[in-house]
């Protein structure tokens, strides 16, 4: 019996790819666990509550009145695809949080969607220019299947941390699991440390 050839792989010598990830190229896969909701921009709102000085709810028009912010970079899905050199346009979450005033007691946040999806994030991961609310992908309106009209963008973490159809963020003084975190995935999800599943270092 001939022995199998050794695995060589595509050998993508791409320094922008975290370990175990591959470049999906121009494709943009859709991964959604629940029914895709129909959210109208006319009725969409974003609520900041919990441990904040001024609980705040913004309409789409109020959100768009904030300073625009365009993000360019790479996104990484825990299912091992990465999309390199992509872009999103919206507002920095910092601009929204400045209106609400996150209290010093807040350590973690839960972002949530109209579908009932939730995901947890340490405050440090959603402040300081690391998170956005976006409504355009590569200069086109964000489609419903990709989370439109407005989704979160937390690109330094695996993409399940960037909630589609986002409707609010709640600040807490403790860490509380969101949807995928309850269902076996890592509580933080840093792609460069390959924090895919619960219990990974």
């Amino acid at each position, binding site marked *: *019996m001939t022995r*199998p*050839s*050794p*695995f*060589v*792989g*595509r*050998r993508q010598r791409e320094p922008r790819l975290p*370990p*175990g990830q*591959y470049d999906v190229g121009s*494709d*943009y*896969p*859709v*991964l*959604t*666990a*629940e*029914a*895709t909701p129909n959210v109208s921009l006319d009725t969409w709102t974003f609520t900041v*509550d*919990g*441990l*904040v*000085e001024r*609980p705040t709810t913004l309409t789409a028009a109020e959100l768009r009145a904030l300073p625009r912010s365009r993000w360019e970079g790479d996104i990484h899905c825990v*299912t*091992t695809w990465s999309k390199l050199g992509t872009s999103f346009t919206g507002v920095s979450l910092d601009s929204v949080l400045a209106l609400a005033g996150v*209290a010093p*007691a807040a350590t973690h946040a*839960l972002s*949530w969607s*109209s*579908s*009932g*999806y*939730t995901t*947890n994030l340490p405050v440090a991961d959603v402040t300081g220019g690391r998170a956005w609310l976006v409504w355009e992908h590569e200069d086109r309106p964000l489609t419903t*299947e990709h989370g439109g009209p407005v989704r979160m963008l937390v690109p330094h973490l695996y993409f399940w941390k960037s909630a589609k159809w986002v409707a*609010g963020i*709640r600040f*807490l*003084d*403790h*860490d*509380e*699991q969101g*949807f*995928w*975190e*309850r*269902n*076996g995935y890592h*509580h933080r999800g840093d792609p460069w440390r390959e924090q895919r*599943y*619960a*219990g*990974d270092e």
Partner: protein
Amino acid sequence: MSAARSGPPHTDLSGSALPPLPTLGGSTLRNPPETGAARRWMDAEVVAVRRESATTSTFRLALPVWEAHLPGQHYVVRLSAADGYRAERSYSIASPPEDAGHVELTIERLADGEVSPYLHDEVRVGDTLTVRGPFGGWFVWRGTRPALVVGGGSGAVPLMAMLRHARAARGAGRQVAEIRAVASFRDEAHVLYAGEWGEESTVVLSRQDSPGGRPAGRLGVADVEGPLAQVLAAASPERPLEVFVCGSTPFAAAAEQLLARAGSPTEALHVERFGPSAPQG
């Protein structure tokens, strides 16, 4: 794990309680799987390789550390090159949890893939594969609630795990909720687990007339209405219906819409999508 499963109540700065956030999955999450322990990489022996269709084979693995999985869960396979480069892919489990010590992964050979061609072309019985699992706590059927399961192509793999589990558990005299499956394939040459789809199942061919008389065509409302009615009849407020859809993104999007038109409740839906976002030729 550092995150609590359910923490203290949510409050505002004055200490007043806030309304709970919506929770996808609702009651199914009251009994979450034991997902806290790390699943470590292990070397599994390939003890059988079985051809399922023109493009798909099942790899039967003997696991040094085995844990009963939930039907619908997956394992991750890792291939490593001599220089340290590695690639990982997730594959659904086809075997039932009653098959102790083993898992079977049914894997389609994607011509332009990086991992699946290697598995199909190079891996033989007696080789070892580096794997870890089982993973997944959402797209799982515990056998306690009536279920309609709809899959396209490789999306039929977790459906078969669910059916095999139902049969094995019933064969052992255990109670299992009603389950109906609708599996869609291109044509007869691409049917997975041929001969194993029983009376609880409907097999639909999209590009070939079926022996039963159904003309070639994509999955339609008429294909799911009957099975949906049967599981809805078995559902109750205590044991509400679960609907599982697994397939490519175009298949899952279409199935989701036609299930809604057939009267399937939105909150019952569990979706697992894979592959490219654009339809494949």
